[in-house]
């Protein structure tokens, strides 16, 4: 029998048929996640063509991109956002789709709430009209973002027409240094490989660094696969995965769960299976990371200097950021800090931040927003006493949502201001028109908020 990768196994189990020998394949989708921004036109499309939703019970909806992070119990003020949210509620009701709307105890960022509820399971296929759907690959699922036309296709048939991507494996082995978090690992990988090295590929992360990571950490890593162009990332399911899934709301129960686990154990890549491309990194080379430019590949170790490059795109990026080649970011004053987004808004991220912040005070020049990824994370923050730590240090804990990650709601970074952010994209204007984003881990973000400037966290910890 030929040796198969984790990706092959899951993909092959979901192929309904092929268009012709070399054509695209019909891939069956187990779970379809939707939110308010990329679904309305798909619902319209089906309605216009008189096609019913094929499998409404395999769809889960949440409201996250456009939602306010304050006063969620009150009507949404912005009329366009309100209309989009109302449209989602209407569409879900009409089509019998489960919706965890604003204020619901399970509401949250789609990539935070679905794993929490056990919707995300190993060996399954999942899609969502959102590129960071790659997050769910942390469970050994094939999960990827799709466009709105494809949302309509899944509505109509629970399937997609796709060409099987190529396979890529990134292995990281060794021991991570103090203060190096999963976010640093993925920022490091992207800084080495660039933003389009993964295009056309599905990436598997392998090695003891990922095996030793919690599910939260694995999600942070897989989340950013798209930032190197890969459609998705995956990590082989193991005991850590099974323990996380067990007993969650939508997880299989009892005997059913045991049977599933037995199957999930067959999924890891066979020894000797072939990848189209492979990269290896040594964990000891990774340090806390930070970005200086306008794409996530423009990252350096926090103590390094910004490299020089004569290409117009590079120069344009530095101009936008108002940085110069050869300078360090250490000691740069920062007025905004955002800890949130589907990359780093899980309980573990807030624990890291709280641990650093405890007993310290936020710097006066800093506006710091802590935005949990879901209602459940919010509840846990309160329960574990982390909120008290944040309150005492002068940090503002807001209500769940995408928030300043893409600034569709009121949480915008003003023109020209820098924001040290735990989100995943530092594109021009991503956090508000003219805003300047510096990506980092929750630890670096917390330290920046306390110091009012970027500090060399490695030195600090030692």
């Amino acid at each position: 029998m030929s040796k198969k990768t984790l990706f092959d196994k899951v993909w092959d189990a979901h192929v309904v048929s092929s268009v012709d020998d070399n054509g695209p394949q019909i891939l069956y989708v187990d779970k379809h996640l939707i939110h308010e921004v990329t679904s309305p036109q798909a619902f319209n499309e089906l309605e216009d063509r008189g096609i019913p939703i094929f499998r409404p019970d395999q769809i889960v909806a949440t409201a996250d991109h456009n939602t306010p992070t304050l006063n969620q119990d009150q009507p949404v003020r912005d009329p366009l956002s309100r209309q989009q949210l109302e449209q989602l509620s209407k569409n879900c009701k009409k089509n019998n789709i489960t919706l965890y709307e604003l204020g619901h105890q399970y509401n949250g960022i789609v990539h935070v709430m679905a794993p929490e509820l056990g919707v995300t399971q190993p060996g399954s296929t999942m899609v969502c009209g959102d590129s960071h759907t790659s997050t769910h690959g942390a469970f050994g699922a094939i999960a990827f973002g799709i466009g709105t036309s494809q949302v309509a296709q899944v509505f109509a048939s629970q399937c997609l027409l796709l060409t099987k991507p190529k396979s890529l494996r990134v292995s990281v082995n060794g021991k991570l240094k103090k203060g190096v978090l999963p976010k640093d690992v993925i920022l490091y990988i992207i800084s080495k490989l660039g933003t389009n090295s993964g295009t056309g590929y599905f990436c598997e992360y392998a090695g003891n660094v990922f095996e030793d990571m919690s599910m939260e950490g694995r999600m942070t890593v897989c989340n950013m696969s798209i930032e190197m162009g890969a459609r998705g990332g995956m990590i082989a399911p193991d005991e850590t995965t099974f323990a996380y899934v067990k007993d969650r709301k939508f997880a299989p129960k009892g005997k059913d769960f045991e049977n599933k686990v037995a199957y999930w154990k067959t999924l890891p890549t066979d020894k000797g299976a072939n990848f189209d491309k492979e990269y290896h990194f040594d964990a000891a080379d990774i340090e806390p990371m930070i970005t200086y430019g306008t794409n996530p590949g423009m990252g350096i170790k926090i103590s390094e200097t910004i490299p020089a490059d004569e290409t117009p795109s590079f120069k344009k990026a530095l101009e936008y950021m108002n940085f110069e080649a050869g300078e360090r970011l250490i000691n740069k004053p920062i007025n905004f800090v955002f800890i949130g987004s589907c990359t780093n808004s899980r309980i573990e991220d807030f624990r890291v931040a709280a641990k650093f912040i405890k007993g310290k005070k936020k710097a006066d020049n800093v506006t710091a927003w802590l935005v949990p990824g879901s209602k459940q994370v919010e509840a846990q923050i309160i329960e574990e006493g982390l909120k008290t730590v944040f309150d005492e240090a002068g940090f503002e804990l807001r209500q769940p949502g995408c928030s300043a990650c893409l600034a569709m709601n009121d949480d915008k970074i003003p023109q020209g201001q820098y924001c040290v952010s735990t989100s995943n994209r530092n594109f021009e204007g991503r956090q508000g028109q003219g805003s300047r984003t510096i990506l980092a881990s929750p630890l670096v973000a917390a330290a920046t908020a306390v110091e009012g400037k970027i500090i060399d966290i490695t030195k600090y910890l030692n």
Partner: protein
Amino acid sequence: MEKFTTLKSTAIPLNIENVDTDQIIPARFLKATDKKGFGDQVFRDWRYHKDGSENPEFVFNDSSYSGSILVAGNNFGCGSSREHAAWAIVGYGFKVVVSSFFADIFKGNALNNGLLPVQVTDIFLSDLMSKIISNPQTQIEVNLKRQTISVLGYDAYENFEIDDYKKTCLINGYDDIDYLVNHKTQIKAFEAQKNY
């Protein structure tokens, strides 16, 4: 979906790499619940200053360039999966985007909206870019059936790749929904026997 066979047009040269979908259509314009009007906002923050005045340095505001072909730098359409980016480009009047590399999701979104992504080599792209920049009247022909892109009046042409199925869809104006809905019996049979 509109059919696509051949197109002869001048082009707009967008000589920037890594154009992400946040630039093509900023998030604040994603609150619409239909597909209309995105063309007016395409590249909004590059076309206009924050005070609403036109940015004369952005190529879209240089009246010497026009046409229904957008020629852009390497790695076009990276970032967010928002199909609004494809709607905005189509809405502005483009039918073809040329680059030496396209992000996966954008490419799929473009094809699903009758917008043809033409991937060429870096050498061809830089030659094409400089020809258009130095002569805005440069005519380009894209022939989908033959899978060629050529610069008229020069001996410059290249073949581009497209998967046969997508090509047939574009030429006939079909989309994937038609195909999938016609396979429901097979999909139901798959559901009945799936063993994972």
